[in-house]
């Protein structure tokens, strides 16, 4: 099952995929699409990725988590358009104890944000768009209008 998907994420199904009668502690993180960013009203959002590398890095992150703690972890991230309020990323870590479940869940979401080659493009209520870029002033770099971008390629 790929880590990146264009389909809505199913938290219950991910919980079921790692739950086990021996692992009674499940810590989850769901990141949903917010309607505001840097003071601007967001109306739509889309994710793109370097697919083969993203899949490999997600796999590595889960291997690292499962080597560091006695847990099983599920991770999925959306690609393409994601509506406001929908889940963009879900992590579920299942262990026998709370400490390890929380630690592994937190590790995986932080590593995913830091290491997986995925990019977020936001559209605002005024019709403009921007690339989210944590290294840029204000965290955003203006994008070309999608129509202009299509005309060039």
């Amino acid at each position, binding site marked *: 099952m790929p880590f990146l998907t264009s389909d809505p994420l199913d938290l219950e199904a991910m919980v079921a995929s790692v739950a086990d009668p021996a692992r009674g502690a499940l810590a989850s993180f769901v990141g949903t699409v917010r309607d505001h960013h840097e003071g601007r009203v967001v109306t739509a959002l889309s994710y793109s990725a*370097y697919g083969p*590398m993203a899949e490999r890095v997600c796999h590595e992150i889960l291997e690292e988590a499962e080597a560091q703690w006695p847990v099983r972890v599920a991770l999925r991230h959306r690609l393409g358009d994601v509506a406001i309020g929908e889940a963009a990323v879900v992590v579920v870590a299942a262990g026998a104890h709370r400490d390890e479940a929380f630690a592994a869940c937190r590790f995986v*979401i932080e590593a995913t944000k830091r290491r*997986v080659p995925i990019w977020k493009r936001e559209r605002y209520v005024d019709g403009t768009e921007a690339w989210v870029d944590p290294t840029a002033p204000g965290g955003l770099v203006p994008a*070309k209008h999608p129509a202009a971008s299509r005309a060039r390629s």
Partner: protein
Amino acid sequence: MAMNHPQGSLRVRVLLFARYAEVVGTAEHEVTVPAPATVADVVTALRSDVPAARILPERPLCARNASQALPEDAVEPGDEIALLPPLSGG
């Protein structure tokens, strides 16, 4: 694999993503660089081949064959070198 290329040079595929693809106007470009070459040499070649690529950082985050790479890493014929804008998943 290098038979159809000049002696002492190698051909690699450059992939561009997200904002980099947008500003350069393409998601893919092939460059030829003198061998031996590094990831940094490939970036330099792209910037001289494609005028719009000069807007990219001189040392962008790169991957070689889908693994993160350093500028000084060697490239081989047929490699896929990806230029990655700052990541913003999650």
